[in-house]
């Protein structure tokens, strides 16, 4: 089991090594002549206004929340999908109930305007 | 159902509740109607209780008018009512005093009449329940439930410090009684262990074999609850507060009936259930009773508030009752029961009288009065009779009770009896001194000279009590005769239950007959 992942680990080491090495090489080779203007945040050439860490639209949070819920539902779908052929009708009904509830949730969010990006 | 054709005791309890229901649907603004309805209901209850009195069979020692119905079978509790010679006088006292208290409230209570009358009727129902319940749980339900209307009576219609007084009253009572509840449960389980039957039936539980050590604990728990209610000497501090703050009718019922529940509790429950422990506790309780007699009297002497004075006199009087109960012979116990009734009548009447004068002058301070006998002759006369009754003047009811108690006690605890006699003298001192300051001498306030004497309604309140005072004083036998069998039964039962190491004093031969016989038998 674990053994089949060995190549992946080697690959990860390889890629990570490559990435770090590249970083290091570019760090070593590139020139460094920092100026105040160069190090300031880029705002199309004018002086930066305020901090970048300000509040952003609440919609992003909403998407995050919806994602978590639906993503976890999908987690349940995968094992079911693999063995659906053996589960037959039983599995089908179970999942239709499950997906039905999910759809009601989606419908609810939809009607409530949770999916509108513009207000 | 021994004699009666119907469940008369339940009717006694339920009738006031029906009255409550009736009152709730009456418009609160129609005060006259409400007052008359309440009076009618309580009067009806009085009539019913007179039927009980008439039909009561004095020869029977056991419970009469018994009603029994299944209530909570799983914990062995049933709806079990009955009356015997011990509870009958108190039952009558209750039904007699309540209409009077209601009548007395016609003028004293100006606001929230409807709620007031509802409370009075609830209280009536609860008080009757306490005296007729023969199942421990049922008794407890009435015992505690009755607190609710009393709590409102003091708290809503009371004097300036009513909230403090009412909370103190409830908390003191609760503190004692919850332990009693535990003791009741423990008793039932102990009984179950020995007999295999879980029951809260008082008659079943009496005579059970409980070890001496356990009896002491259980008796202590019961005793504490009752002693607080009586109230006995160290637990009495709630009483003056409650009395002073309560409205007149509240005081009447509090002094007249509620305090008797404590002494009744001792007789009905603590003694027969735990005879050996009762004997063991006798010295302590008798001593406390005597201390209470003297302490109450001495403190009463220095009061300048009439109500507070009467309140402390109650502590003293109930000391007599306790002393008599723990003498455990027939004279003393019957004297105690009689004295309970007497105290209810005389103290109730005193509170009524004080209420009447308070309605006129809005003060109860002794120093405010003086020379009232000239302006209020009828009032003064009534006051005199009642005061004499309270002191124990021969020919009035108080004398009979105290005499029986003292002679009964003298047989067994000479020392206590002698000291207690001192209490009688002190009572005469503080009562007469009070009467003198209020009724004689010069009036210290101009208002006193222009007061109206008591009118017809007020006479109607007082006359029945005074008649009863005289009747019991001159002919106590009808009442005493009804007690005999039950009291003897009670004391015999204790004697049988007690083992050799503790001794219930033997009863002297009891002579039946008229007033003369009674005095002879005491010698």
């Amino acid at each position, binding site marked *: 089991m674990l053994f089949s992942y060995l190549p992946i680990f080697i690959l990860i080491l390889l890629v990570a090594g490559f990435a770090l090495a590249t970083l290091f090489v570019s760090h070593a080779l590139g020139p460094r002549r920092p100026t105040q203007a160069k190090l300031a945040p880029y705002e199309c050439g004018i002086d930066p206004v305020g901090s970048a860490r300000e509040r952003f639209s609440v919609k992003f*949070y909403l998407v995050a929340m*919806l994602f978590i819920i639906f993503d*976890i539902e999908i987690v349940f779908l995968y094992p079911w999908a693999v063995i659906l052929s053996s589960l037959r009708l039983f599995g089908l009904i179970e999942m239709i109930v499950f997906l039905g509830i999910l759809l009601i949730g989606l419908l609810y969010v939809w009607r409530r305007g949770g999916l509108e990006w513009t207000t | 159902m021994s004699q009666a054709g119907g469940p008369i005791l339940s009717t006694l309890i339920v009738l006031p509740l029906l009255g409550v229901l009736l009152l709730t649907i009456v418009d609160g603004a129609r005060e006259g109607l409400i007052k008359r309805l309440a009076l009618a209901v309580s009067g009806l209850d009085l009539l019913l209780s007179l039927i009980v009195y008439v039909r009561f069979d004095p020869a029977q020692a056991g419970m009469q008018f018994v009603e029994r119905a299944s209530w909570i079978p799983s914990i062995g509790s049933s709806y079990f009512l009955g009356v015997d010679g011990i509870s009958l006088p108190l039952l009558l006292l209750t039904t007699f005093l309540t209409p009077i208290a209601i009548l007395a409230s016609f003028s004293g209570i100006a606001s929230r009449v409807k709620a007031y009358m509802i409370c009075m009727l609830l209280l009536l129902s609860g008080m009757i329940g306490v005296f007729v319940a023969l199942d421990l749980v049922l008794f407890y339900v009435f015992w505690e439930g009755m607190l609710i209307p009393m709590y409102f009576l003091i708290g809503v219609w009371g004097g300036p410090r009513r909230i403090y007084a009412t909370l103190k009253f409830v908390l003191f009572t609760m503190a004692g009684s919850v332990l009693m509840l535990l003791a009741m449960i423990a008793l039932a389980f102990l009984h179950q262990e020995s007999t295999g039957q879980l029951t809260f039936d008082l008659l079943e539980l009496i005579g059970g074999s409980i070890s001496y050590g356990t009896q002491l604990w259980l008796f202590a728990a019961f005793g504490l609850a009752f002693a607080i209610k009586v109230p006995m000497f160290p637990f009495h501090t709630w009483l003056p507060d409650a009395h002073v703050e309560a409205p007149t009718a509240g005081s009447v019922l509090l002094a007249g009936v509620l305090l008797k529940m404590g002494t009744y509790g001792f007789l009905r429950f603590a003694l027969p259930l735990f005879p050996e422990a009762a004997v063991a506790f006798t010295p302590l309780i008798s001593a406390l009773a005597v201390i209470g007699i003297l302490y109450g009297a001495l403190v009463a002497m220095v009061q300048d508030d009439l109500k507070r004075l009467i309140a402390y006199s109650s502590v003293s009087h109930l000391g007599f009752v306790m002393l008599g109960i723990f003498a455990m012979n027939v004279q003393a116990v019957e004297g105690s029961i009689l004295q309970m009734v007497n105290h209810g009548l005389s103290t109730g009447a005193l509170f009524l009288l004080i209420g009447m004068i308070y309605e006129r002058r809005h003060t109860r301070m002794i120093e405010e009065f003086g020379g009232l006998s000239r302006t209020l002759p009828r009032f003064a006369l009534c006051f005199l009779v009642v005061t004499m009754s309270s002191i124990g003047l021969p020919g009035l009811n108080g004398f009979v009770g105290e005499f029986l108690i003292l002679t009964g006690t003298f047989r067994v605890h000479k020392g206590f009896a002698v000291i207690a006699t001192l209490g009688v003298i002190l009572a005469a001192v503080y009562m007469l001194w009070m009467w003198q300051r209020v009724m004689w001498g010069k009036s210290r306030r101009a208002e006193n000279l222009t007061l109206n004497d008591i009118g017809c309604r007020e006479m109607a309140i007082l006359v029945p009590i005074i008649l009863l005072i005289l009747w019991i004083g001159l002919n106590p036998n009808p009442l005493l005769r009804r007690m005999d069998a039950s009291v003897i039964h009670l004391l015999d039962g204790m004697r049988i239950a007690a083992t050799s190491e503790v001794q219930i004093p033997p009863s002297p031969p009891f002579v039946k007959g008229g007033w003369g016989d009674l005095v002879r038998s005491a010698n």
Partner: protein
Amino acid sequence: MTATVPLSAYLILSAVLFVIGVIGVLIRRNVLVIFMAIELMLNAVNLTFVAFSRFLHSMDGQIIVLFVMAVAAAEVAVGLAIIIALHRNKESLNVDEINLLKG
């Protein structure tokens, strides 16, 4: 090549993670960090379940982990919603400053 890692190692690891989560909840003041610490606790428990599942040769533990994950996700969603609602009304995520209700 398949060296067996003893069960105790997994259990100790998950216990340590759990305790780190507990400490995080107790000493950190930022709501989001506390929230993450709670998630850490849940995942530590998941590790325990999986380890036991493997050790006991029973699938139950792994299925339970799925349930727990779903629950944790729901908790996150609800939690985020609550935190946002709070943040809109009061611009602070420090639990010491969220003290309108006297504790």
